[in-house]
């Protein structure tokens, strides 16, 4: 983990995006309190420390909640939106994209991968085997 770089250029947001472009899903870990942090911050929201380093996320998570955004087929059809609890702790919003949205249920294990939405690199999820 790096030391206190959160007020330097490039900032945490840019560092995160650069890693994503290179195919890595990284989250922050606080050197002060040990909390994992997502989305990227300059100050730890748990303890106020600026000693934030980067770790590669395991990508393993569990669906905390989910919905189906209903949309006419001609506009692209229905799609999933969900909240995923990463095994490191942080929660993020994303989509499960490899299954019909009806099959995305609360409590299901999911696995992150880096994909594209609207020509932007983003973290997406697929359903994973339990355990």
């Amino acid at each position: 983990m790096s030391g206190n770089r959160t007020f330097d250029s490039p900032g945490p947001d840019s560092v995160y995006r650069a890693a994503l472009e290179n195919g890595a899903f990284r989250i922050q870990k606080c050197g002060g309190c040990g909390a994992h942090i997502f989305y990227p911050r300059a100050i730890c929201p748990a303890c106020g420390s600026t000693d934030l380093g980067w770790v590669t996320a395991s990508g393993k998570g569990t669906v905390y909640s989910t919905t189906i955004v209903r949309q006419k087929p001609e506009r692209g059809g229905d799609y999933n939106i969900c909240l995923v609890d990463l095994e490191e702790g942080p929660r993020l919003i994303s989509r499960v994209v490899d299954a019909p949205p009806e099959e995305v249920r609360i409590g299901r294990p999911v696995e992150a991968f880096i994909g594209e939405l609207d020509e932007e690199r983003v973290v997406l999820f697929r359903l994973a085997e339990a355990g």
Partner: protein
Amino acid sequence: MAHMLRGAAAVVGLGLTEFGTLPERSHLEVMAEASHGALSDAGLTVKDVDGLFVSNFASPFLALQSAEYLGIDPAVLDSTNIGGSTFVSHVQAAAMALATGVCNVALIAYGSTARSGGRAGQGRGPQVRTPYEDVYRPRNPIGSYAMAAARHMHEFGTTRDQLSSVAVSARAWAAKNPRAEMREPITVEDVANARMICDPFTVLDCCLVSDGGAAIVMVRSERAGDFPKPPVYLLGIGMAMTHDQIAQMPDITVTAVAKAAPRAFEMAEVSRGDIDVMEFYDAFTINTILFLEDLGFCAKGEGGALVESGAIAPGGRLPVNTNGGGLSCVHPGMYGLFTVAEAVEQLRGEAEGRQVEGAEIALCNGNGGKLSSQVTAIFGTGAAV
């Protein structure tokens, strides 16, 4: 010792526009109509106002725009935006400014033509992007609230019918309110069978999109008796927030009301049993269930059963959203001020056709963002102070 804000300021003027469709009018024109109504109600004009509190989805300069438009010479200007709870938070800011003598006549005003004018009608500029949320197109705010409902159903067994009963109750109240937009009775089946928007929400789980405006005038209590209408006193108020983006909400089934409400109750020196009527920002059916739980009217997870019992409907023991709420009365994008407006009408005894008999104490809960900010305000009649 009583809190210095308890009973320090009172609402002495209320103005409402027509609700529904107000074509070919700007949000400033609608705001001005509501403001004129509130000031006339108090026997005042814009020239008496020295504190102006406004908000919408416009530029950060809305306060300048509005003061110029109305011809107000302000000592206090505030266009904070914490979402639709903003105008309830303005009640706190206005009471502080009045109590400390920074201003003498506070006008809190809102106007929007969200239905006729779309985003421009709400004064909405380019959408502010939340880069870790918007890219997934969660259809905010609906998607965020839908996930709160889905989680509540998962954890506590809250049912489709229980969500529906919130909308049915709101409609039953609206049927008694000549000003409400949607007055045709509906059933739980109607709600469940309506067009699905974001599971589990159908279109009838979601608030309206309206044109409309509201305004109130507040003064220090020492002169509150000098106006034509009976004063409605602010007894207590509390604010709290938990997050901006829904993924940052610590527990999606527990809102910041759990923190805001105790602050309001403590300041007001009243308890839950003293509340005669409640007005919530019911952006979606789940809101009413969450707020009843977080206010402590039932245990966490029991809000569904409480609303299904008919307690919040006309004739129930806990009247909620007696105007029909954002679900059936009016919702121009930011509903907060309409909770206060209905509380004022109820405490004045002016809520024709839907009056809660003998109402002396009313509770308002403004909600903002994606269940993000919550402001609980408790108002009372002169007898309650």
